[in-house]
C-alpha cells in the first residue's frame, strides 16, 4: 500500500507536526515500508483472543485522601518557555 500525499498531510496535522515537502516524502516512504511490515499481522487468526493492554494484572490503586504535593505552580511555570503573571502564554486563540 502506498500512502497518498493527502493522507500524509492529514496524519501530520493529526500529529501536530509541521513537515516540509521533502521530509514528508521521506517519512511517507518510511511509513509505507513500516506498514507493509506490520501487515504481517493481518494474516494471523486472532479469533477468540482477548486484547492484551497490560502485561501484568492491574488494579485500581486507592490511597489515603491527603495532600501529598505542595503548591509548585511557580516552579512549574518556570519550566515554560513563555509564562507571565501566573499563566502559560499562547498565541491569541479567540478573535
Amino acid at each position, binding site marked *: 500500500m502506498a500512502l497518498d500525499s493527502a493522507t500524509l498531510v492529514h496524519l501530520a496535522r493529526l500529529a501536530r507536526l509541521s513537515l516540509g515537502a521533502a521530509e514528508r516524502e521521506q517519512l511517507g516512504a518510511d511509513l509505507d515500508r513500516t506498514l507493509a511490515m506490520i501487515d*504481517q499481522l493481518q494474516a494471523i487468526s486472532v479469533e477468540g483472543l482477548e486484547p492484551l493492554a*497490560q502485561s501484568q494484572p492491574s488494579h485500581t490503586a486507592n490511597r489515603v485522601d491527603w495532600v501529598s504535593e505542595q503548591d509548585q505552580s511557580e516552579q512549574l511555570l518556570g519550566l515554560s518557555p513563555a509564562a507571565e503573571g501566573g499563566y502559560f502564554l499562547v498565541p491569541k486563540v479567540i478573535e
Partner: protein
Amino acid sequence: MSRIEALDTVTGQLAAMAAGSIDPRALVERCLGRAAAQVELNALITTTAEAARAGAAALAPGGGPLAGVPFAQKDLFCTRGVRTTCGSRMLAEFVAPYDATVAARLDAAGAVSIGKANMDEFAMGSSNENSHFGPVRNPWDRQRVPGGSSGGSAALVAAGVVPFATGSDTGGSVRQPAALCGVVGLKPTYGRVSRYGMVAYASSLDQAGVLAHTAEDCARVLAVIAGADPRDATCSTRALDDYVGSLDAGVRGLRIGVVAEYFGAGVDPAVAQAVRTALQVLERRGAVLIDVRLPSLPLSIPAYYVLAPAEASSNLARYDGVRFGHRCDAPVDLADLYSRSRAEGFGTEVKRRILAGTYVLSAGYYDAYYRRAQRVRRLIADDFSRAFGEVDLLAGPTAPEVAFALGEKASDPLAMYAADVNTVAVNLAGLPAISVPAGFVQGLPVGLQLVGPAFGEARLLCAAHALQLASDWHLQAPGAAA
C-alpha cells in the same frame, strides 16, 4: 584485550571502601578521570563533576547499601536541578523540579551520580545514533555502535568509567546495548521498578533497568531501585526477593529452554555458536537444556511496531511548546505553535514513530492495527506462559549480530528495528530478562539472553552469576583507551 579490575565493579568498590583502601572521594576522582579520558565515546550528555565531588565528600562509607559507589544515570530519569534531555532537542534545556523514584532511591542508598548518559532520542533506537547530542561510540571498536537506546550507559560501563549505570528497556534498550558492549544488562519485570520520573515512551512496555559488569552488581542495584511506589500505580506491591542473598543458589537441575526461534534466520551463525557454547557452560554446572518453541515470536516485531508507536504518539502529545520543552519562534497561532515546536524539537525517528502511531490509532484503522496487535500480544504472552510450564528460564542470543558499523543501518529503519528481533517479545509479555557476556565474534562481544517468568529476577541473576563464576568473558575489557 585487557581485563577489568575489582575496582571496576560495584562489589569490588564496596569491599575496598569497607577495607579502608579507598574512599568515596577517590572513587569519584577515578571515575571523572576516566570519563575525561573517554570523552570521545560521547557517552555522557551532562557531567556533574562538582555535584559528584560534593556528594562523595558528604558521605561516610557504610552510609547505605551503595554508599560511595559512582554511577551514570540514563538521561531519561528526571534529576532535580540537573537537566534531563532524553537525547532530544525538545528537552535540551529541561531541568526537572523533582527526582525520579530511581534517582531518589539511588541517592538515598549513597550512590553518587557523575552525570547523565547519552541515549537514543526518547529511547527510540537500537544504535544510539538518534541522539540530538551525537552518536555514542562502542569502546570495543569506535567505528561501531554501542547499541541503543541505553548506548551511553553500556559504553560507560564497558569502558570502565562507572561500575554501573541505569537504563530503560521498552523493546531491548538495556539488553541489546549490554550485549553489544560486553556487559550485563538486566530488564526487570514490568512494574518491578517504578516508572515515576522516567520520561515515558510506551507506558505499557517501559521498564527501568541496570547495566554493570556482573550479575552480582545488578542484584545489588536492583535491590535498591525495585519495589512499590505510591507514585506509580503500575508499580508492583509484591515483596522483593533477596537478590543478593540468593545469587549462590546454583543452577543444578535448573531447566533452561533453548528457544529455536531465537536462533532463527537473521542470527549470525557465529553469534549462535557462541551462545550455545555459553549454555554448555551452564549445562556443565548442572543446568538441563531443553529445546522449546515460541511459535509466535516472529510476530513480535510487527506487533511491537504497532503498539509502541501508538503509545508513543499519545505520550509525546504533551510536548506542545507551552508548558515545557522547545518552543518555536514567533508562532502565528496555536496550531503553528504546536506544529512547528514539535517539528523543530523532535528528530527523524521520533517523527517516524509518532506518524506510525497516529496512523494505527486513527479512525478506521484502530481495529485493524491496534486491537489486532493487542490480540497478537496475547498470543505472544501465552507462548511464554506455556513455555514456563515446562522450563524455568528461556535462552537465546540477545542480539542477532555483534555491534554494527556507525551509519550501517541509520538510513534503513526496518533493518534497525530487526536488531531487536530477540528482545521485544519480552517487553510485550512484561517479563524479566538479562543479557550476559557470552564470548566474542571477531573481537566483538556477544550476549546471551536469559528470560524468566514474571518476578523471576532472583532466578535470572542466580543463573547469570553461575555463568560468570565459570567463565571470564565479562572480565575482558576493551583495549587501552585510544
